[in-house]
């Protein structure tokens, strides 16, 4: 199965993506992750102003199959969360890299240490077997 893995993003092994926008980063879950989880029915978002270290659990995402933790791909303070997802989680499935974004954080510069698209695709291929 092939998944959309945009070249301009960075990826965490825990299947979150990161897009740098000025001095902030936007975070969501990957196309592979939304497909593996199935239809998302609930997202628990952190408060704006909360700070996380890379690898910390920042929220919970629930699909019809399972409930999973969301991990901060980089360290930093949350500057915005996608509150639209509280009422309608469908964009995470239909548009994971666009309207399905989950939160914005202040950039800590750590995103360069994350996987690039090719490395993430390789990581996904290994997970499927």
């Amino acid at each position, binding site marked *: *199965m092939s998944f959309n893995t945009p070249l301009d993003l960075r990826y965490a092994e825990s299947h979150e993506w990161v897009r740098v926008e000025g001095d902030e980063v936007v975070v969501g879950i990957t196309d592979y992750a939304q497909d*593996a989880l*199935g*239809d998302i*029915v*609930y997202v628990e978002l952190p408060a704006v102003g909360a700070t996380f270290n890379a690898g910390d659990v920042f929220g919970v995402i*629930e699909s*019809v*199959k*399972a409930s*999973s933790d969301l991990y901060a791909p980089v360290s930093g303070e949350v500057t915005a969360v996608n509150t639209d997802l509280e009422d309608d*989680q469908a964009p995470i499935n239909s548009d994971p890299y666009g309207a399905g974004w989950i939160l914005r954080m202040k950039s800590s510069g750590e995103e360069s240490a994350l996987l690039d698209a090719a490395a993430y695709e390789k990581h996904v291929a290994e*997970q*499927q077997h």
Partner: protein
Amino acid sequence: MDTYEPPIFELSSPGKYGANVPDLDVPRAELPDDLLRQDDLAGFPELSEPEVIRHYTRISQRNFSIDTGMYPLGSCTMKYNPKLNEEAARMPGFAQAHPLQAEELSQGALRLMYELQADLATISGFDAVSLQPAAGAQGEFTGILAFHAYHLDRGDTDRVEVLVPDAAHGTNPATAAMVGLKVIEVASDERGNVDLADLKRKLSPRTVGLMLTNPNTLGLFEEHIVEVARLVHEAGGLVYGDGANFNAILGIVQPGAMGFDFMHYNLHKTFTTPHGGGGPGSGAVGCTAELAPFLPGPLVNRTADGDYAFITPEKSIGRMKAFHGNFGMLVRAWTYIRSMGAAGLRKVSETAVLNANYIRTQLDDIYPPAVDRICMHETVLKGQIAGATGIRTLDIAKRLIDYGFHPPTVYFPLIVPEALMIEPTETESKQMIDAFIQAMRSIAREAVEQPELLLAAPTKAPVRRLDEVRAARQPVLRYDADKFAKLRDSE
């Protein structure tokens, strides 16, 4: 084909009733206003007695149960519950005993509890047993409370972390969180065991203990169990055993001998007391002599003159439940253990493991195993059928309903993509297991040749595929005529 049964509200017609009240033969008196119901009774269903009986009987006939067919729900041990258990539980001395009845009038019931405590201790290699917890998750909660109390009692106040493998039942981390402790996840290795290097990294002077299921949720025997227990003990922690999978090892190996300090027994899995809605459950717990003083009380003890009496351990964490556990379940479990005997219980586990491996070896050419190893009482396969790209485990599970089988556990453990967790138990015959294998092979063929059959399934159930996404996103949790009408219109 069976058809959809409307909610009882929609069977109502005004003026019908099911009870005949005799004519008034005394002066009429009104109830005080504050005792009158104030809320609106409009829409309350009005039916005759036979209409009510038929409605609920029709619904009850749609229950799929172990008395109607094979129920290979992994990790749940849906084995046949012998009817002898029911006969014993209905004996008036047990069924009509009052929980507050004096000890001297309850000697038979107390003796049964005493003997069950002793039998469970022997089967598991522990020193003490409490029959109080109402279900497995409450047994876990009891165990972790006891661990916490044990550490505090030694003056060791820094232990706040509970280690849980990534394949664990969800109740394990939930238990630790309920006790107010921090959950630390431990990775699994390629053979499905606890990853020893990761375990070592995560053990510390803050470790309360490790919660482990053996066989684990991949249906595999933990190959390094003795080493795992030794490492946890060296770090000053304790090892909790989730007894969900105890059906695989009865009479073969004792959890106490493997290094566990405390475990729960799911009497409703391993020891044939009814499950779930037909329950209640029972999550009796056993432990080492070191932890026995912390068990919830009361337990049943035998006095010097041979009487049975309740005692509460000196440092007991307190009661976990009113009265004496789900006593009717204790009668059923006692009956099962005594009718099987030690040799019979060993045979139970041997047959359960043989049945699961038979299914594994008959299906693993089309459903890839999660880990390619001899399994214990259940096998975890993946619903990834070669050449069937649009088909997922959920579709396979739904199609099994059309073949007359209850689906296995799906999408658990979480670390296995498209997991199908199959536990046949020892009470299915070879003919029935062969029929299940044939159904699974037919479904795999259909998945490639006629995938629409799977995507439309179930077609032979009272309702078609339910919209689980909509049910989760827009739940309607109580009957509401307007909402129901809107939902129907939108379809």
